[in-house]
């Protein structure tokens, strides 16, 4: 467990939960890799006003954070007009939550992106004056125009790219579909921005596409959520900003070493949300693959790693994967290793050992299936496949109940009538509020941690 030598910087640790025992001929190794960073001196609570971000940062590295807030100003934001007003208020609340010294900007998004504050391709440094000016500028925001989220992200990237800071973060708010650019345009923008900054995305109201918002959050390693009631925006924005202010270390990468002849079947973040990282691998040398994890504050995340190793004789032991948390050196030097854990494979003829399923692996396998069942069930429901929707959502209810995922169980209960949670017997509700369905869809990937 490598540490940051600097005071106040978070310490990372890795724990591996697995059943390392394989039967004769067994090849698949599953492990839950729990990464915890702690001791950064910043909690997810409200940051103390006036605390300097640079004081907590390692010397010789860029310090501080930069945040760009992207506010949807498309014409639909005026229907109802409270939406625009709430968006302004929410952005103001986020600006108020900025820690002193944080670089920031506000961008208005329509079919084009425009700088609202401070303008001129620059970022402002948060203090009482700039906060007041930013809020003054927010009053001039007017709804009108289309929606092209890709252009907002590209502008945010330009602004953030000019800042000499370690943490770059965006907050994106939309209320409608991404109608004024092609999905490919958005995809290209996301690809261009991935790894350059992290971004939380929020959909307000019920006229936006869940897939678009979650795609932004997923690609940019942030969170996605629905704010069905615009009046809840301010609190949500403040919370998001607090979270962003709590980030201490950016560009943290999960690096997996696997032996020759082995293949990584999948790598998923499984807590706090399910996020498949398998396709995000970048090769980092012989048998090394890097998976992005974004920036970290005081938090803990779990990853499910599945490796298929070449089989070996009973009694052999093999390292199936070495999971390291690293910060790549942008200059191409040796990356800094923050922590490391070992995933092992041991072949045994003890059936009791090889058939046992690690509780963590079982739990997160269930959580991943839960997210998948919700997605499939809602898809089937939309396409009018009542039987398929009932079966999948029933399975989701069963999994949520069995794993103690009460938040998801409550959301499911708004979409289906639960007859018996234990067996997964449900009936589709005849009428479902759109907001409830979208909430379930957006939050389907939220998981609970294993009960220890």
């Amino acid at each position, binding site marked *: 467990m490598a540490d940051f030598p600097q005071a106040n910087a978070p310490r990372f640790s890795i724990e591996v939960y697995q059943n390392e025992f394989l039967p004769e001929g067994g090849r698949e190794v599953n492990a839950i890799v729990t990464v915890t960073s702690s001791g950064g001196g910043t909690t997810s609570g409200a940051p103390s006003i006036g605390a300097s971000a640079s004081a907590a940062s390692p010397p010789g590295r860029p310090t501080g954070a930069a945040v760009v807030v992207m506010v949807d100003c498309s014409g639909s934001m005026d229907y109802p007009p409270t939406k625009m007003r709430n968006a302004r208020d929410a952005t103001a609340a986020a600006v108020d939550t900025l820690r002193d010294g944080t670089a920031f900007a506000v961008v208005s998004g329509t079919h084009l992106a425009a700088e609202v504050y401070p303008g001129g391709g620059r970022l402002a440094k948060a203090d009482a004056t700039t906060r007041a000016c930013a809020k003054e500028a927010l009053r001039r925001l007017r709804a009108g125009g289309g929606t092209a989220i890709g252009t907002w992200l590209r502008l945010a990237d330009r602004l953030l790219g000019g800042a000499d800071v370690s943490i770059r973060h965006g907050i994106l708010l939309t209320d409608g579909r991404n109608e004024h650019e092609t999905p490919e345009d958005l995809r290209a923008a996301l690809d261009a921005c991935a790894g350059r900054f992290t971004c939380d995305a929020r959909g307000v109201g019920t006229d936006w596409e869940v897939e678009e918002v979650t795609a932004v959050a997923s690609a940019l390693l942030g969170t996605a959520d629905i704010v069905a009631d615009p009046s809840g925006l301010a609190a949500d924005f403040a919370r998001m900003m607090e979270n962003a202010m709590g980030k201490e270390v950016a560009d943290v990468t999960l690096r997996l070493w696997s032996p020759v002849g082995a293949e990584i079947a999948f790598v998923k973040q499984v807590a706090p949300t399910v996020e498949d990282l398998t396709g995000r691998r970048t090769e980092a040398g012989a048998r090394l693959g890097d998976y992005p994890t974004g920036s970290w504050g005081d938090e803990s995340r779990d990853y499910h790693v599945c490796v298929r190793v070449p089989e070996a004789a009973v009694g052999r032991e*093999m390292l199936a994967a*070495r999971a390291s948390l690293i910060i790549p050196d942008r200059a191409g030097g040796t990356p800094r290793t923050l922590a490391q854990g070992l995933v092992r494979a041991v072949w045994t*003829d003890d059936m009791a*050992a090889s058939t046992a399923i690690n509780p963590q692996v079982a739990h997160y396998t269930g959580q991943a299936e839960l997210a998948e069942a919700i997605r499939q069930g809602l898809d089937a429901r939309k396409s009018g496949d009542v039987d398929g929707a009932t079966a999948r959502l029933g399975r989701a209810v069963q999994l949520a109940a069995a794993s103690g995922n009460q938040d998801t169980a409550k959301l499911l209960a708004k979409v289906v009538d639960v007859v018996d949670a234990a067996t997964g017997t449900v009936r589709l509700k005849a009428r479902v509020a759109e907001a409830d369905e979208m909430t379930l869809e957006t939050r389907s990937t939220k998981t609970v941690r294993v009960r220890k």
Partner: protein
Amino acid sequence: MTPQIPQQAACSKCPGCEEPFESGDLFCGACGYDLSAVPRPPRERPAVASGTRVDWPEAPLVSEAGGSGVPATPQRPGELPGTDSGGRELPIAPLRPDRPDALPVSAAAFSPVRQAGSEARFGPAAPGGPVPGVPGPAPACGPGRAPGPGTASAPAPGPGPEPGWSPRSAPAPGPGSGGFQPAAPGPRVGGHPGGGSAGDDGRGSGGHPGGYAAGHPGTGPAAPPLPTQPCVACRADRVDPDGYCGHCGHAQPRERDHMERELSGVAAVSDRGLRHHRNEDSFAVSSTTLPDGSPAVIAIVCDGVSSATRPDEASLAAAGSAGEYLLESLPRGTHPQQAMHEAILAAASAVDSLAAGPGTAMEHGPHRHRNPPACTLAGAVAAGELLVVGWVGDSRAYWIPDDRSGPPARLTEDDSWAAQMVSAGLMSEAEAYADERAHAITGWLGADACELEPHTAAFKPDRPGVVVVCTDGLWNYAEAPREMARVLPPDAASRPLHGARVLVGHALDGGGHDNVTVAVLPFAMRRRGAGSA
């Protein structure tokens, strides 16, 4: 093939009085007094500078506290009818050195007794607890144990006639325990041949004529290999410091995978075997010097319980602390059997303390994370004319006489399901050992062992031989004493390390399904080194 059917033999009739045993009884109801051989003072080695002859101290009476203690009831000559073992049929290997559920008896003796037909047999050693009020002849090691007919070719079997030693006496001093003196003066002062050498631990090595050496295999469960060596699996020269090949990922051999240790008078070999991924066995061999300057040789073998967490640490801790304890207590003059008893208790507390240690929650195997570390233990001490064994669990000690025409014997009684079934008379040995529960052990060292019952026994071999102390990884492939004797090379007494290697090789040839650990401890008679048959 299996001449040794201890339970059945023992349960048939008493070796001394021919009184039938009741089923399940582990000692004669007629003459069940604890037979205690008071050992003679150990011989002196020629090399010993100090010529002082130091008597054995008494083996303290084992307290009855705990419910299972068997007091070493002193017996006086003439108190019980004498035993005429010469003409009596004795059971084949009724080695019942201890009642499995009893605390150790005090020193007992065995001695092969030549019968007509010249087949040597072991007399029962210390057949268990007392059954007061039932008179009966004592088993074979009574004072009347004279060579029977047909013993001409055998070594003098009975020490009985020798003055100064009363085999019927308990170690406790009493009238008639001729020649036996408790070590009255503080043994660390008066009895230490190395006098001034006693260091802070009372077993300073420098001044001991024989010195002592301890061998504790291994230092940890995952000692990395030398980084300069190429991978044993793929020959890549990049082996990471944590012991895995950076190319193919295969774990490199660890220090504990194969361990060998040889000292003067004892050798041990331990091997991971062919089917287990790590060696959860451990051993400790050492030698020290008794207060009179004569040597005492120690061998301890431990087998980690695989269904518990960190079994490798348990065996390492147990073997180490038992060995250390004996190294401390024997030079002080503690009776070897008492020392063995206490050493097992010391090992048990060492294993117990692992349960609270760090890493309890670190091993996440769901099938094993509930059980605290545990292991078995079998040990032997050769001190003077006395051979003491002690055990908990299913690790064993065998006696193989150098003259292979004499019968070998098993000196221990497993704490195992099968042994319990057999001793309770519920199953035949063949049935019991064919059952899948056969190897479930009923006694172990570990925090979850509800009642620790260290078994010890003392023997007084009448001929040179070799003690094989081993884990079940060996005896699964040579269960019967005669099989063990067949596998053990004839020159094991003079080449103990070679003998141990051959035994380990026998287990590996048989499949090596478990870790294999063997200690070979030659037991010489007066003529030192007279080993080979």
